[in-house]
C-alpha cells in the first residue's frame, strides 16, 4: 500500500510541476498568444510598417465607406476598442457577418498615413445566440441597436419565443 501512496504523490507532484511549467511558459508568451491587438495598443506602440499585425475591435457605427476602385470594392471603416480608433482600408469582399457594431479582426500592416491596410478581414461574432424575430423585436422596441454594442442581458430576452416576438411586432405601440 505504501508503494501505491508513493506513486500517487509522485503522480501529483509531476502533474503540479508540469502544470506550473506550462503556466509560466504561457504567461511568458502571453503577448504572442493573443490573436489580435486593440486599436489603443496599436496607437500607443505603432508596429514597424512592414510587420503584419492583427487588429481587433468593433466597427464604429456610421464609419463604413464603400467605394469601387478599378472594379474592386474598397471599404474604409474605423475599428475601436472604446479608447482609440484606427481607420482600416480593405480591398475585397467583406465576410457575411461584417456590419457596423460587429467585432472584426483585420490582418495587415499599419501604413505611414496612419491608416491600417488590411489584406484580410475576419468577422468575430459574440457568444449571444438569438432568433431573428427576437432580435427584430428588441430593435423595434428600442431596447437594443446592434450598431452600438452587445445585446442586452440574456435574462431580458432568452425566454422570448419566436411567437412572442411576432406578436410584439404585430402590435405597433410597443416602443414607448
Amino acid at each position: 500500500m505504501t508503494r501505491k501512496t508513493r506513486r500517487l504523490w509522485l503522480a501529483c507532484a509531476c502533474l503540479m510541476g508540469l502544470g506550473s511549467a506550462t503556466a509560466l511558459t504561457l504567461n511568458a508568451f502571453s503577448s504572442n498568444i493573443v490573436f489580435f491587438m486593440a486599436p489603443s495598443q496599436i496607437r500607443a506602440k505603432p508596429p514597424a510598417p512592414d510587420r503584419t499585425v492583427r487588429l481587433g475591435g468593433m466597427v464604429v457605427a456610421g464609419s463604413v465607406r464603400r467605394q469601387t476602385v478599378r472594379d474592386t470594392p474598397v471599404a474604409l471603416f474605423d475599428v475601436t476598442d472604446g479608447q482609440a480608433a484606427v481607420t482600416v482600408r480593405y480591398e475585397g469582399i467583406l465576410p457575411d457577418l461584417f456590419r457596423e457594431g460587429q467585432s472584426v479582426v483585420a490582418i495587415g500592416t499599419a501604413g505611414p498615413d496612419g491608416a491600417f491596410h488590411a489584406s484580410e478581414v475576419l468577422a468575430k461574432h459574440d457568444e449571444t445566440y438569438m432568433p431573428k424575430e427576437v432580435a427584430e423585436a428588441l430593435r423595434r422596441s428600442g431596447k437594443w441597436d446592434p450598431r452600438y454594442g452587445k445585446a442586452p442581458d440574456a435574462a431580458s430576452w432568452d425566454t422570448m419565443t419566436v411567437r412572442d416576438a411576432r406578436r410584439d411586432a404585430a402590435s405597433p405601440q410597443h416602443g414607448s
Partner: protein
Amino acid sequence: MNATHSLVARTGAVFHRYANPGRFLRLGARLQPWLTWPALALSIAGIVWGLFFSPADWQQGDSVRIMYVHVPAAWLASSGYAGLAVCSLLSLVWRHPLADLAAVEIGPVGAAITAVCLATGSLWGKPMWGTWWVWDARLTSVLVLFFLYLGHIALIRAFDEPQRGYRAAAILGLAGAVDLPIIKFSVQWWNTLHQPDSITLTGAPTMSTAMLWPLLVCTLGFTLGFAAIVVARLRAAVMESRIRAALSARRGRGRAAPDSAHDSDVPGGAVA
C-alpha cells in the same frame, strides 16, 4: 500521512471491486441497453430539433445549426480526455488492468470526436468568420488535444510488451490533462477569434432557450452515445483478452501431461 495512506488504500479497494473484469462484464451487459437506446433516441431527436425546429440566428442565419453538433463534440472531446486522464492515474497508481483496457478503447473514440469538433468548427468558421482556420488560442489548444489523442493511440500500441505501452501512455495521458484548462479558459485569458462560452456553470446562458434546449438534448444524446460505444468496445476488449488467455492456457495444457490439466484450470485467469 496515515490518513492519506488509508484513503489511498480504500479508494484502491473500491476501484478493485468495480474494476474486476468479470464484474465489469456483468455490469456492462446490464448497462449497455440503457446507454445505447436513449443515446440513439436523444441524438436523433436533438438533431431533428436542431435542424428543422429551432430558430435561425439573427446574424448567423441557419449556419448556427452547426452548433448542435459542434458544441457537444467539443465538450465530449474534453471530457473524453478527462476520462482518459483518470484511467491513466488509476493505471499508474493502482496498476489497474481494466483502466489500461479502458484507456486503449477511449483513445480512438475521443480522437474521432475531436476530429468532428475540429471539422465542424472549420465548416462553421468559413461562412461566419471568413476563414477555415486561424491559429488562435482556442483552436490551437483543441488541435493539441487531437494530437495528444493520436499520440496516446500510437504509444499504447507501440510496445511488444503491452504493460510497457500502458505505462508510457498513462504518463502521456496524465501529462496531457494540462491542456484541458487551457482549452477551457483560452477564450478568457487571451484575445481569440473564437467567441467566449455561451453556457457556463456560473452565469446565465447567453442563448435563446429555443436554441438551448435542442443543444442540451444533443449533448445528452452524444454523451450517452460516447459512453455506449466505449462500454461496448471495453466489453469486447475484456472478452478478447479472455479468449487470448483461454487459447494460450489450452495450448499450455496441450503440451503438458494430461494429469496436470486441473492445476492450470484458469481460463482468462490473468485478467479475470
